[in-house]
């Protein structure tokens, strides 16, 4: 069949159809990209100071400045398949929790849009989520067991600040062996508990009373034991901010204690 010359009008019509097809394909692709993020709202942990999920997603400009300032690299940016919006930051606390080792909430200060609200100034005001003992049977303290060696094994990449080792530089958790009769790592490493203890002995962090958490976050309580060994159970208190250090440090596999995202977070704890 001989190719026939298209009239000007026909050419215009074809161009119009193509343009419309292009326009709608790209728009649909963009909309498809937000469906999972709307569905997965509040399933992930957000960086300190994050507004309530919908507001947070509105405000985030996806620049990753929070990622860059975090001394322990706790913050990651979501990919297309993560279902929470491309380029939006989240925390996977089992792999790397926020241990507040920057002390000044650097991610909040870095955020250019207020997606991480500047209303929070101190770690105890943060509202990432709340810890829950979801597998009490696998908890070493509940079993009356201790911990010897590094908490998560030699290959674990997570970092934490141990003040007695280096006030300013976090070190790998793998490089810090423990030797405890009864595992109390979730309490011992809790950044809120550490600060509260410092305040109790009259030495608040940086000498600043305002850094003192008004409430305790976690403690161990004695539980009944049939065989006479000492057994304890972690109890999460009102002061827990969901930083996730307990989940990261928990030697049980999978972790006995995990952070649940706070659906009703307001950015700042009231």
């Amino acid at each position, binding site marked *: 069949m001989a190719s026939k010359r298209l009239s000007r009008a026909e050419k215009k019509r074809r161009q119009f159809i193509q*343009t419309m097809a292009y*326009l709608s394909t790209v728009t649909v692709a963009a909309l498809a990209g937000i469906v999972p993020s709307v569905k997965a709202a509040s399933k992930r942990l957000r960086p300190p100071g994050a507004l309530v999920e919908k507001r947070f997603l509105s405000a985030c400009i996806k620049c*990753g400045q929070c990622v860059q300032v975090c001394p322990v690299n706790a913050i990651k940016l979501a990919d297309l398949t993560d279902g929470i919006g*491309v380029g939006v930051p989240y925390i996977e606390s089992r792999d790397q929790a926020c241990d507040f080792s920057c002390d000044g909430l650097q991610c909040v200060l870095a955020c250019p849009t207020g997606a991480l609200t500047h209303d929070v100034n101190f770690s105890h005001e943060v509202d990432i989520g709340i810890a829950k003992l979801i597998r009490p049977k696998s908890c070493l303290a509940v079993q009356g067991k201790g911990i010897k060696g590094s908490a998560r094994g030699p290959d674990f990449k997570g970092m934490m600040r141990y003040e007695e080792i280096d006030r300013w530089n976090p070190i790998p958790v793998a490089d810090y062996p423990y030797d405890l009769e009864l595992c109390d790592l979730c309490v011992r490493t809790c950044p809120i508990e550490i600060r509260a203890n410092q305040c109790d002995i009259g030495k608040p962090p940086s000498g600043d009373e305002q850094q003192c958490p008004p409430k305790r976050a976690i403690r161990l309580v004695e539980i009944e034991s049939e065989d006479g060994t000492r057994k304890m159970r972690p109890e999460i208190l009102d002061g827990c901010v969901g930083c996730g250090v307990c989940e990261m440090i928990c030697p049980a596999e999978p972790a006995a204690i995990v952070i649940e995202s706070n659906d009703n977070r307001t950015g700042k704890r009231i």
Partner: protein
Amino acid sequence: MKLKDSFAELFGADPKRVQKSDISEEAAAVHAAQKADKSRIQKIHDELAEMALNKPGEKTRRIRWAVLIAVNLLFVVSYWLDIQLLEGALTASRFAGFHMADLNSALQVMLAFKHIVINLVIGTVTVFILWWLLGGRTFCSWVCPYHLLSEWAEMIHVKLAAKGWVKDHPMDRRARMWFWLIFALLAFATGYTVYETISPTGILSRALIYGPGIALAWVGALLIFEIIWSRRAWCRYACPIGLTYGLVGAISPFKINYNLNNCFHEGECKKVCLVPHVLDTVIKGRAKKIHVSIGADCTRCGRCVDACPTESLTFKFKGFSDYL
């Protein structure tokens, strides 16, 4: 170029027909002389033959690529070496501690969030002034990482087209305005920065700095579309970032200047141009004045400057002489 026409061109209107009455006396004289002068036509043929033999080097393009790569690498190096010189990504960043925000990303956030914090205002104003001085869409060709990939895709497209394997399917340029409106409305209505999900600029910038992800597949799809179906389709017909910067650059003091006196109307400039409609004035008989400023859709990439054998097109910091 008149501001009104510059905006119309940005929004996708076809170049207006030039009325005789619009052409200045001086320009009319040059047009008439060019028609009468037969030796000029011979010169054009000589010139083109010469150019076919010795392809002019693309010096500006090489400098531009170096700048584009350097800016993007500065983000990467700053992060990896932790020197805090340029933190963040192209959507928003801090240069030596000073906030900068991509104008389109900032606009999307403002529409979605409906609340503006002071840091974003500072970042937006800084970037606005910067790109206003540098010409608006200068961002596209001198900074945007997608532009570079798209230029490479374009090279492939042009090669394949020469062999007859692919054909360019131009689209209606008004599409970009519709995209801009659709994404602005979507941000406002859904409260989510919908465009950022598919912005190849943001995806590429983050991929460079924070490591690659599956989102790059979308960028790949756009490039393939440009190679096999429609030349430079994203930059020409879709990108709302380009339109935003175009609006900023419309009143910019930095322009490409066209000099009618030198022009042989060979059309080499239009062949290489990303946005050839801005060069409508170089067509024989269309220039209204001896010196014409190229409109706001121009990305100041300088390819026409390199391509023109007679230096009729040059970069020029014109100040506000156009509007006085």
